[in-house]
């Protein structure tokens, strides 16, 4: 089981990298700022005093910069989200290869990639929801990215609903591949169009971002991609086993 070993190694390294990113996010990454907190009097604290333009009128207390802890979700949320996007595209590429070659293996690959993408999209949704709750105090906000991922999740669920409703194997594979391609074209359009409508989702990834922030992000991203590939490999191994079972059963039954 060479593949299974590959999968385990990938997931293990991915796990280490994402854990490293997690720790770095708290210990080495620069804490980003999110507004100010005003206290009645000056206190002895590590929190820096806010710039002058945020200070209340004299005699009404002093404003401190508020560290933005919920931003730490970013080191996980964004890698997961980007990985989900990438895996969806990979699934669509396999779908196109299936359509042009009609070989069943590409259908399986496309399906497993779609399943991995669905796992990632669901996780993006969950972390996104927790982020909105932490930052804005609400559980759900119809804002562009959350909405896009919601739509992506619906499309991926629709993909599996479509598969389940067709008996004939080749037709199922073809329709699923066509839908995967349509979904992969549609996802970026949704993403773009939800952004055109004004919204308040933060753009955390700014060009001037400190390298101390960039490093854990990149490490987290690489780790997440490895986990994604590990999940994909593990599922493919499972599917191959399943095929062997089917072939053996058929051979036994005549």
């Amino acid at each position: 089981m060479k593949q299974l070993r590959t999968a385990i190694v990938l997931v293990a390294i991915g796990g280490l990298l994402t854990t490293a990113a997690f720790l770095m996010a708290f210990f080495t990454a620069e804490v980003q700022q999110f507004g100010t907190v005003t206290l009645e009097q000056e206190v002895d604290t590590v929190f820096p005093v806010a710039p002058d333009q945020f200070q209340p009128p004299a005699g009404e207390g002093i404003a401190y910069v508020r560290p933005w802890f919920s931003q730490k979700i970013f080191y996980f949320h964004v890698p997961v989200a980007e990985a989900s996007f990438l895996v969806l595209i990979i699934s669509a590429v396999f779908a196109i290869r299936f359509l042009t070659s009609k070989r069943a293996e590409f259908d399986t690959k496309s399906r497993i990639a779609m399943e991995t993408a669905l796992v990632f999209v669901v996780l993006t949704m969950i972390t996104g929801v927790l982020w909105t709750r932490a930052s804005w105090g609400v559980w759900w906000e119809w804002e562009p990215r959350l909405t896009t991922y919601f739509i992506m999740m619906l499309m991926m669920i629709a993909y599996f609903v479509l598969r389940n409703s067709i008996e004939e194997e080749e037709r199922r594979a073809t329709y699923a591949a066509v839908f995967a391609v349509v979904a992969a074209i549609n996802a970026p359009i949704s993403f773009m169009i939800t952004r055109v409508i004004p919204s308040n989702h933060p753009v955390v990834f700014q060009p001037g971002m400190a390298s101390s922030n960039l490093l854990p992000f990149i490490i987290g991203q690489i780790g997440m991609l490895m986990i994604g590939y590990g999940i994909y490999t593990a599922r493919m191994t499972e599917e191959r086993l399943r095929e062997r079972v089917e072939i053996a059963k058929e051979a036994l039954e005549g």
Partner: protein
Amino acid sequence: MSSWRQFKAILKKDIVMELRTKEMLTSMGLYALLVLVVYYITLSQAGADFEVRRIAAGLLWLVFIFTSLLGLNRSLVHEKDQGCLEALLISPTDRPVIFFGKAVGNLIFLLIVEALIVPLFFFIFLARPGAQAGGPVWMLALALILGSIGIAGVGTLLATMSVNTKGKDFILAVLFIPIMFPLLLAVVAGSAAVLQADPEYVRTFWQMMGLAAGYDVIMLLAAFGLYEFVLGA
């Protein structure tokens, strides 16, 4: 041009059949009217000072998205029922001709239903004394046409798949609505801009129409390219 002749034949056949049975138009039209009744129930609780105009665009598109599901399904079931699609596939008809024949037919029926429902919707919900006037009608018509093109094009592709599945209507809705999401967002925003006619609405409108047109072009190309595979399966 033989393709042109085949295209006309497919379109003419759909129209003759529809004029004879009036199946699609009555079912779609009636369904739309029923939705209007449900809207009345919904809005009756909103209070007298509620501005229906603010949500009118969304309500309008809601009717069309669901009635179009009904029509798309019907239009492909006709082809599927007696195996006629197979007869077309075995004939020397290019696959894109079949796609455009069906899609244009669906577009025509959808536009007819829209032409009936929009004035009705306007008189029931929007024509109140003292209500502010919206933008010009042709702008709304443009939004309706751009939206309907996308619905008919992508819908024809998805409906051709869903007629071959168990539980066709449900599958079509599940596939269709998420795929339609960007287009709906654009045309609802565009129609809302026209209906509310806030200052600067013309700019928003054109921006949204640009997005809708872009979606139509991309998705029609995709549907056009993928239709052959769907027919081949």
